[in-house]
């Protein structure tokens, strides 16, 4: 219990004094996760819409695979990305290993199935609703997808925030592909792992509380910007 209170106190102190190291790794955490989120949404949302509206024989199979990939252990993704980006690997020449870019790649891969699965369900429900109307209006495939994505935007935001949550707390994959290098690829979660490993529980907890606070702040900001609780029949 002492550790918990000590951790809270330390967290408060670190934040209030804008501790230099804390600010550096917190900003890096946000940068890596938000970048991964942006890229993942660009991939996952149109993918979800496409799978929701296009009729093809393997549809059910693809959806099952997407759902299953949600349970992919992040550390396995990290290992696979490492093998690809390693100097001995196929993409080694790009020199991406142990950089924030490698971490963004790994996190993107981890959250795309999550965002796509959640988004897909909402888009599919809306497609059932709009189906007759849009077909009758002769929409192109592109117009169909854009209409569904826009009208579904609240649910898509939820999907994106789910992805954000998964990514900001992830540690296994980015430890492997990032290397937790001080001043280069260290982020909140890997720093927590490091301090825990050194037995510095209070500091680790402090970092943990900062991480939680950060995640809550981002979620609040997005909800406020999206005005999700205001009036509206959707």
């Amino acid at each position, binding site marked *: 219990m002492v550790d918990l209170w000590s951790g809270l106190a330390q967290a408060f102190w670190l934040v209030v004094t804008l501790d230099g190291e804390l600010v550096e790794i917190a900003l890096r955490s946000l940068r890596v996760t938000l970048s991964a989120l942006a890229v993942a949404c660009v991939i996952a949302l149109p993918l979800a819409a496409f799978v929701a509206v296009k009729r093809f024989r393997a549809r059910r199979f693809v959806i099952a695979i997407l759902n299953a990939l949600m349970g992919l252990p992040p550390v396995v993704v990290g290992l696979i990305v490492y093998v690809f980006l390693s100097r001995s690997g196929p993409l080694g020449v790009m020199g991406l290993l142990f950089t924030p870019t490698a971490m963004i790649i790994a996190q993107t891969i981890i959250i795309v199935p999550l965002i796509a699965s959640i988004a897909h369900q909402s888009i599919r429900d809306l497609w059932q*609703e709009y189906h*007759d*109307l849009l077909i*009758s209006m*002769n*929409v192109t495939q592109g*117009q169909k997808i854009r209409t569904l994505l826009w*009208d579904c935007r609240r649910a898509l935001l939820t999907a994106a925030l789910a992805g954000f949550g998964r990514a900001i707390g992830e540690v296994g994959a980015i430890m492997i592909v990032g290397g937790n290098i001080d001043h280069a690829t260290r982020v909140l979660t890997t720093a927590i792992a490091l301090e825990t490993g050194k037995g510095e529980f209070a500091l680790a907890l402090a970092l943990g509380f900062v991480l939680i606070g950060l995640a809550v702040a981002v979620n609040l900001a997005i909800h406020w910007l999206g005005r999700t609780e205001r009036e509206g*029949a*959707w």
Partner: protein
Amino acid sequence: MELFPMQARGIESRRHGQVLVGPVDLRLEGQGACVVIGPNGSGKTTLLRLLHGTARLSAGRIDWACSTEEARHHQGFVFQRPVMLRRTVMENLAFPLRLRKVPAGEARARARDWAARVGLAGMLERPAPVLSGGEQQKLALARALISEPKVLFLDEPCAALDGRATREIEEILTAAKSNGTRLILSTHDMGQARRLADDVLFLLGGRIHESGPAETFFNRPETPQARAFLRGDIVE
């Protein structure tokens, strides 16, 4: 762009081996309102969808005066239960125009104009899903008419509406008809059929049992089933 005359030859719709509609031969010209009547299950909805192109033909062909591709762009369809986009009234109205790349300013102007025509002028910023049934159907109708289709299909548009809403819809339809839009609508309401029809298609068991100008059909029906139906008997 001339769509009519439209010729349907031997068209059929089959599901799981069962024939829902057909074979049907039909020739339609481009003026007035054609009302499709018949008992439940006679295939009215399916016939409309076949002609509109949203139900697949199991047999036969439909030929318009122009290509089928082009014909699709000049048609509208109003469903029995209106499908509202989860947007405002204004955005619903502008939607078909934006699909056709009409610039936003012009689309909004036309939307405002049509909203006024159907009596929804004060509700432009309301979310469409919160409108009443009658208001939603008027919106659906305006949305179908805003792109100035040459032919408008309506599937029992007033089935779920009260008298006042029905009257308003019928006024809009009559106006559209005088503007040159060909109407093809199905209905259960014989009064509505008499009020609106220029020609009638009487469906029974998926086939056209009798057809003709409205005046002839309502006053001198030829077949016994038509007579029974007009009398109000149950016809199978």
